[in-house]
């Protein structure tokens, strides 16, 4: 789960790090801006769980409070890279000669933590890593150990920031990552102003699998891009919105992705990725069908199941329950194989739904229903 900037900064503050002064204003209560006691110049920052908001107009610098009030409402009206703006962070603008970068993340390749320091902060680190690799220092740190002096020293040397200034930041970065199960803690940028370092922007991504250990974080609302994503998250489905018009339900992430790829290769356009997981019962299928039925973008529903733990008869039961006595609002194409596929297929046919055993035939059928050219 990617935390919003203001949530990330609250955590940094709890860990004793300095952040810019500011207040958070909700979409529904723009009058909250009246409570500010900040010193101009100020900056308005749209709180969206996605990168590149600066380029998308999500950051607005203002000279005074009056200007901030004017810009506030127009920023709430914007759509930033697909996300509506629910909250805006109004902060004092901090000017510094040098903007620096620091992050701690999990390195899949080396099976370690990666501590990355960049002498040029404030911009996309991957781009800098390509264009000016010398400005980036990457340390690989085994999870069996903690941060040590020599790590901090290497960063101090690389960024030309005294040990005493950088040491607490590096150590707290590590503490946050370990204690909160963060996949990424990124400070970009942070600046050195006199004797203190101030973090201007921060991004924390918490491991979804570890949320059970962090009740406060676990209670934060889901932050999907679309209404369906938020609803799917509440049902507990693994769901991603896509731009096409064929709704997909699969079991297993690999099979569901392969189904997307298959549809595309037959000229279709997936409207979603929906993985019911292993051993799903009929109620999960019923809810999944309901979700796609409600989605106006979806013109046909394609269910592709290879039964292992998942039983074909449960798939069929769920579909039949979802359809109810009414004729289906949208065509449903089902492909069943594996455990109890035959029983499931018969059950479906009795209820007027045809089931394929070949995924290719099923895919061609689904694409043809939306007028695609297979």
């Amino acid at each position, binding site marked *: 789960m990617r935390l919003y900037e203001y949530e990330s900064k609250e955590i940094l503050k709890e860990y004793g790090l300095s952040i810019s002064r500011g207040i958070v204003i909700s979409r529904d209560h723009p009058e909250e801006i009246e409570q500010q006691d900040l010193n101009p110049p100020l900056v308005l920052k749209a709180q969206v769980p*996605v990168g590149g908001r600066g380029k998308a107009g999500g950051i607005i610098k203002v000279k005074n409070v009056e200007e901030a009030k004017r810009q506030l409402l127009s920023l709430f009206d914007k759509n930033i890279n697909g996300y509506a703006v629910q909250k805006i962070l109004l902060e004092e603008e901090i000017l510094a000669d040098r903007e620096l970068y620091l992050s701690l993340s*999990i390195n*899949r*390749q080396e*099976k*370690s*933590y990666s501590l990355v320091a960049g002498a040029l902060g404030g911009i*996309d680190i*991957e781009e800098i*890593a390509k264009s000016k690799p010398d400005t980036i220092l990457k340390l690989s740190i*085994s*999870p*069996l150990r903690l941060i040590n002096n020599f790590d901090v020293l290497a960063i101090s040397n690389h960024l030309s920031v005294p040990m005493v200034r950088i040491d607490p930041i590096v150590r707290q970065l590590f503490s946050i990552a*370990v204690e909160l*199960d963060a*996949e990424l803690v990124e400070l970009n940028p942070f600046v050195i102003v006199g004797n203190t370092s101030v973090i201007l922007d921060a991004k924390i991504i918490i*491991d*979804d*699998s*570890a949320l*059970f*250990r962090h009740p406060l974080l676990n209670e934060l609302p889901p932050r999907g891009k679309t209404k369906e994503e938020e609803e799917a998250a509440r049902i507990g489905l*693994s769901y*991603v919105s*896509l731009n096409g018009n064929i709704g997909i339900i*699969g*079991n*297993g*992430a*690999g*099979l*569901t*992705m*392969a189904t*997307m*790829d*298959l549809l*595309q*290769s037959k000229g279709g356009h*997936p409207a979603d*990725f929906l*993985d019911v*997981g*292993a051993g799903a019962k009929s109620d999960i299928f019923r809810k999944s069908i309901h979700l796609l039925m409600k989605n106006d973008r979806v013109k046909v529903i394609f269910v592709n199941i*290879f*039964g*292992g*733990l*998942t039983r074909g008869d449960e798939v069929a039961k769920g579909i039949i329950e979802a359809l109810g006595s009414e004729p289906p609002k949208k065509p449903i194409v089902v492909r069943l*194989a*594996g*455990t109890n596929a035959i029983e499931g297929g018969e059950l479906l046919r009795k209820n007027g739904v045809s089931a394929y055993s070949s*995924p*290719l035939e099923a895919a061609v059928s689904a694409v043809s229903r939306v007028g695609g050219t297979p």
Partner: protein
Amino acid sequence: MIILHKDTQILVQGITGREGTFHTRLMMESGANVVAGVTPGREGSSVESVPVYNTINAALSKHPHIKMSVVFVPPAQCFDAILEAIDAGLQWVTVITEGIPVKDTLWLVNYARYKGSHIIGPNCPGLISPGKTKAGIMPASAFFPGDVGLISRSGTLTYEVGSGLKENGFGVSTAVGIGGDPIVGTSLLEATMMFEADSETNTIVVLGEIGGDMEEELASAIKEGAIMKPVVAFMAGMTAPPDKKMGHAGAILQFGASSAKDKLELLVAAGAHPARTPWEIPDVLKEITQNTISLGK
């Protein structure tokens, strides 16, 4: 076959749980030599006539030849369970559980290396050597014995492909699911190297996906000549959008990482045979087999 022999002694952690009990029965039906189970507090009972112990050390004192543990315990208890298996000196720990915090896996995979133990998974279906033995949850009916080594980052896709092979007259020596998490104990390359060394495996099928760079690592090894057997590769997620987790915690196309298309192209450039969909794999294998036969003539 790789990793297990027909008679390798297996232990099941979490054997008294619903999944543990169910799959212990299926494993034994598939030939697995499950000799002990562990559930704290349940010592003295038995599951499918397999004796249950409180700790792995208690199980080992009665069954000293156990080589592998198969872990079915819930995510929150997995750190403790896997560490117990590593510290007890088990050579293999196959972790079926999905949803283990990545921090736990990261630590355990490194600790296992230090202790000389090997983790398979987590979030994986385990492995099956059809007709011989099975450790995990793969449906035995989807596989037929043969000479194809099958490696996958995904569970259901493995069954789908195994089943497709079977329908087309191909069998597998071993099918191994390495797991869908960002950090897994056994990489695509490590599994491929085991098949390369296995005398019963003639071709290798790799089912990769977006996220991480295990496929890139495999491509480098093929390019360097470390793998001489033919490799057929499919990459799931050609149409996946960036920055979204596609079901698997590890299936995410991040900025700077290779797309499924990039991965497949790298593998093909290194000498692997591409399959555009999982259902094409039998055809690709037929072509390879024919070429091999005609070369053999």
